[in-house]
């Protein structure tokens, strides 16, 4: 047909047409790439649940078009590196750097994140982004039954799926920890939910501008907004009621930034993350590592709930997700941020069941003044817990973990910082491994029998018998 067309129209016309079509195709691809709206046409396959939000930002991972594995590895570590160290990781990369592991690394190079977490391959991607067969532990622990006779006959596909082990975070699952906590009751006699301490440690937060904003409660006459600023009565009223005004944090603290010479920048009516970072840099940084803030951290437009993969309410589908989306500009009510803000968007079964749960009952009782302080369990209590965090090599302090992925997926990561604030270890492991209880927001009693605890108990007994004369 093309030959007939060429004979009829002449070869020059065919060439011209071919060049024209090629130019149009190239222009379309260029527009798709640079407009970022249709970059999916370049994608070799869909991204995993952990990274799907960055589908229009190839350069977030592929910072160098020809960089290959080492470049990708650097970018993995940039975002995930903090958690890939001890004690949060049982298999830190540093453990495998010794040349004696060369034979092992030939089987599977675990020093590269991509060896187990290949992107764009949904057909082989399992839970938690794993793209290796489930029996991957076999490569190094083939003779585990010799070391642990109790494991004889167990299938390697069950190492991680049974809830007994994780490749990375085993802080609540290692044998000695199970032994230490195996007899804990379902409900611990004493709650150990961590209290907030921000105000009392301000002198330790080097970036906090305490000289400019000393801890004195401010009144309407103290507000330092410029006359040109647009300020309505509601905003002023919210600020006066906020913990910011009570702690001496004036309007300029959020709406203006301070440069190296100590000079205030021009007034910004709608400050972004910079406004929060001056005092809450740890929280903002963590926010950027979680699903809520990862787009902002990459310099992209903020996430809209409509782009989430989890079920969301439609009425807030196009709300841009920033600090103020949850905290509410000016009032910064942490109680709202802890429940109502979450439920304003999330519409999965677990979230929808929350208000029928005993956890919510405790939260409501605390708000009503009936329950003890810190006895309420909000969405944030579990998914954005207050933790004692190493904020530098030399200092740790209590912060709200704003990367909600950090203690999630696998959910056993929640056991220590969250569940064990109120519940015993066997109860916690059992509850989190029951999909029905997870879905209905823990309305019911978990199975008290936990096999990994039984094995740990036997191990402890074996040791005690060995020691006894």
């Amino acid at each position: 047909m093309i030959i007939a067309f060429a004979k009829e129209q002449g070869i020059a016309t065919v060439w011209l047409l071919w060049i024209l079509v090629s130019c149009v195709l190239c222009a379309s691809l260029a527009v798709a790439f640079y407009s970022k709206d249709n970059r999916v046409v370049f994608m070799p396959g869909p991204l995993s649940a952990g990274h799907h939000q960055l589908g229009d930002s190839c350069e977030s991972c592929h910072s160098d078009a020809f960089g290959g594995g080492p470049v990708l590895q650097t970018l993995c570590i940039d975002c995930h590196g903090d958690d890939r160290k001890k004690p949060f990781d049982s298999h830190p990369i540093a453990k495998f750097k010794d040349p004696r592991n060369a034979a092992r690394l030939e089987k599977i190079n675990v020093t590269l994140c991509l060896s187990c977490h290949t992107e764009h391959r949904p057909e082989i991607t399992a839970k938690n982004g794993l793209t290796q067969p489930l029996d991957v532990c076999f490569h190094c622990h083939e003779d585990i039954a010799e070391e642990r006779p109790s494991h004889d006959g167990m299938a390697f596909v069950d190492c991680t799926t049974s809830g007994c082990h994780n490749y990375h975070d085993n802080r609540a699952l290692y044998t000695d920890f199970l032994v230490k906590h195996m007899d804990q009751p379902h409900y611990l006699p004493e709650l150990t939910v961590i209290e907030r301490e921000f105000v009392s440690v301000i002198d330790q937060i080097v970036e906090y501008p305490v000289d400019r904003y000393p801890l004195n409660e401010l009144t309407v006459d103290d507000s330092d907004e410029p006359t040109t600023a647009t300020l309505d009565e509601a905003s002023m009223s919210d600020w006066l009621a906020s913990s910011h005004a009570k702690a001496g944090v004036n309007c300029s603290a959020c709406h203006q930034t301070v440069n190296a010479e100590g000079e205030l920048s021009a007034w910004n009516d709608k400050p972004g993350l910079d406004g929060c970072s001056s005092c809450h840099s740890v929280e903002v940084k963590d926010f950027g590592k979680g699903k809520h803030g990862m787009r902002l951290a990459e310099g992209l437009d903020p996430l809209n709930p409509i782009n989430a993969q989890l079920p969301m309410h439609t009425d807030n589908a196009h709300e841009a997700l920033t600090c103020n989306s949850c905290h509410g500009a000016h009032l910064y009510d942490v109680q709202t941020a802890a429940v109502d803000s979450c439920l304003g968007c999330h519409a999965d079964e677990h979230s929808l069941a929350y208000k029928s749960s005993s956890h919510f009952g405790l939260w409501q009782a605390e708000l009503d003044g009936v329950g003890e302080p810190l006895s309420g369990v909000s969405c944030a209590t579990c998914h954005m817990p207050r933790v004692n965090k190493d904020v530098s090599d030399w200092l740790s302090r209590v912060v709200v973990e704003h990367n909600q992925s950090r203690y999630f997926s696998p959910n056993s990561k929640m056991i220590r910082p969250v569940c064990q604030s109120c519940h015993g270890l066997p109860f916690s492991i059992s509850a989190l491994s029951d999909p029905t209880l997870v879905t209905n927001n823990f309305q019911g009693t978990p199975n008290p029998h936990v096999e990994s605890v039984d094995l740990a108990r036997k191990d402890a007994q074996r040791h005690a018998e060995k020691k006894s004369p």
Partner: protein
Amino acid sequence: MKLNALLNVKSLVGVSVLGLGSAFALTAWSQDAGETPSITPRSMADALHMVMDSDRAVYTRRIVNRLAAKDKVITASEHFEDEKALVLPAQMFRFGAEMVAERAEANPDVNFSYSLQSIWPINKQNAPQTEAEKAGLQFVADNKGQNYYANEELGGVNYFTAVYADTAVAPVCASCHNDHKDSPRTDFKIGDVMGGVVIRIPIEQ
């Protein structure tokens, strides 16, 4: 007078030239000394081991043994974060090895690795794996006071591998290993060889 003055000037110039020459020669010599690879892999491994062994012995005797065993003001535990305890000497050693591995990666001119292993390991991952490790650990256990040296190829890279005996320098070394539930040997005494330090330096064949 003039001749004397001239001689003096000549002497002065001569001394100055001699001095400057010596200074240049010394500078050149000292540069050569720093850049010429006059240290053999074996002497480098011996030196590295002396530093590692001394640092850990100091930590074991003056910190762990003194505070945990003698003064009993704090414990030492492999779960040091959870137990709010001192890091075990073996862990301190391994953390250092891991940090060196990370730092050496960023500085390829400084390239060596080391590990602590045993033919009676508490953690089976610390049992010898390569032939040189197996032979070396057995050799230092059987020949007290002697080191083991070998060449081996791992992952396509040639290494000079040195194995040094790791002995119980304090009572806590023996007692902790003897009491550990996963220890395959429970009769260690102070002064016994409990394992070995393996140091590897990449070499060109």
